[in-house]
């Protein structure tokens, strides 16, 4: 199968995806996409509803979509559930903030010092492959089942993308810009703060965007497995334990999806808002 490609990889396998533009006006395309997207969702919802109502799939496994939505709406009036959701959101916020505070300075230091980078690499390569969830049993013993436990595991999982992107961003700083800063009399610290960090900004932002989804996933996972804690994951786990509340399990998962979507949209928007200038350079 490699024979066919060897002659034309340049044209066909562009690393950067360039969406194919259909020959329709942009506004029209957007409207079409919106309508088709809605139609797609309606079809799926209809299938889920019908399959369950007709008993093709047992209602115990797949309750009608409408009753899941009703259950979800009802949940937002339930103070216990709101505490759970709020706990997850707060943990996410602390988790991503802590990760940034640890990974960015560390990444800048390692990116500036070649010796430090090469020396830390083998250690990092050994520690990083361990799935963060493997820490759960140990951290529960050491820290108990509170917020600290969630944060330690989330931060362990989330620092890597930020750290690596910061290192690469710092490595990629234009050396001429640094020399210019030096010849204008900036101290090494000022060169770092005013030239190196801003120039690594887009890469760091990409790392933060990736990490923010990781933090959410890890926090919900920890809540689900550790038991006893509050949070959306714990809620889903409790509802499974009840046995007869499948709608609420589905509703909890839907809310988790909404949270995930909100995090993606928020971070994507922040990145576009503050770092859109880097798009033209084709960085990251």
């Amino acid at each position, binding site marked *: *199968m*490699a024979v*066919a*490609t*060897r002659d*034309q*990889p340049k*044209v*066909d*396998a562009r*690393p*950067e*995806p*360039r969406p*194919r533009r*259909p020959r329709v006006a942009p506004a029209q395309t957007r409207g079409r*996409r919106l309508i*088709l*997207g809605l*139609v*797609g*969702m309606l*079809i799926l919802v209809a299938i889920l509803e019908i399959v369950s109502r007709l008993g093709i799939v047992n209602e*115990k*496994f*797949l309750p009608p979509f409408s009753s899941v939505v009703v259950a979800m709406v009802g949940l937002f009036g339930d103070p216990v559930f709101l505490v759970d959701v709020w706990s997850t959101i707060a943990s996410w916020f602390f988790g991503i903030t802590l990760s940034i505070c640890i990974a960015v300075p560390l990444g800048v230091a390692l990116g500036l010092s070649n010796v430090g980078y090469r020396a*830390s690499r*083998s250690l990092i390569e*050994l520690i990083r*492959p*361990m*799935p963060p*969830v*493997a820490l*759960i*049993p*140990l951290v529960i*013993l050491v820290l108990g089942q509170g917020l600290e436990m969630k944060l330690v595991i989330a931060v362990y999982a989330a620092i890597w993308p930020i750290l*690596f*992107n910061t290192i*690469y961003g710092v*490595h*990629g700083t234009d050396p001429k810009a640094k020399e210019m800063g030096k010849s204008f009399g900036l101290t090494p610290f000022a060169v770092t703060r005013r030239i190196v960090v801003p120039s690594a900004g887009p*890469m760091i932002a990409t790392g933060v965007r990736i990490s923010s989804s990781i933090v959410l*996933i890890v926090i*919900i*996972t920890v809540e*689900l*497995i550790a038991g006893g804690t509050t949070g959306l994951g714990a809620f*889903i786990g409790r509802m499974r334990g009840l046995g007869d509340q*499948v709608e609420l*399990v*589905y509703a909890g*998962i839907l809310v*988790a*999806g909404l949270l*995930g*979507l909100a*995090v*993606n949209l928020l971070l994507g928007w922040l990145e576009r808002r503050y770092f859109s200038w880097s798009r033209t350079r084709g960085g990251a």
Partner: protein
Amino acid sequence: MTVSEDTTAIVARMRRASEKPWRRALVSFAYAVVPVVAFVLIWEWAATTWPSLFFPPPSRIWDAGVELFFSGPPETLFLTPAVTVDIAGTVSRALLGFALGSIVGIIAGTVIGRSIIIRDLTSPIVEFLRSIPATATLPLFIIILGGEDGMRLAFISYTVMWFVLINTAAGVSTIHGTVLDMCKTFRVPVLKVFFEVMLPAALPKIFAGLRIAITVALLAAIVSELMLASNGIGYRLVIAQTQFRMGDLWAWMVVLALVGFVFNTVMEAVERRVLAWDRLARVGG
């Protein structure tokens, strides 16, 4: 990420190439080994100076690991059931789930990436489903499929699938329309177009997804075992925790890091081999 990695690696290699070869090898070796050895020694020293229940010295973890993994009977090459049942179970489930999820992801991704109508119809659904933190769906898999290995495989495949699907769709959608038009003109069979034109062209993107997917597969395997299992590394972690056997707990964590390391290394080696033709294009671009 990979692009700058390659660039920095090349710059570093060029700089190192100007040094004497034996000196270069020695320096790389020292950079790789010294920090790890120093780390282990400092840990050993710190853990014996200030003994802590939770952080045993590496020597005790080593002893626990040898006892756990290599104290078996000679007929199994001294391997214990911990290796032949638990490690083998986790690794095989992770790999099988990875394979299944990747196949489904590649097929679905190709369909979505090639057909504008299907893409538009499914994009909000895909966008939402992949935003759900995959582990949140584990209780659902347990409700529907029970507590057996089938549930674990389905869960791992589901988790893995999204990463491969998204990347495949992105890769396939960049194929030049002319190439496919030409295939149509020459009446190339659909399967042949899929295997010999689309797949190779999308391969760099697909591998970017597969690299994430192999890590995620191991993570999903462990999560499913932590939650509900009767064997596997995740299950052993929970047992060691409840029995308060800290040496065992650490030994299992080290094993897990090693498994993850091997997965990543093998995946990178495969990628380097399969994508050898693309390396220059990627570094240049």
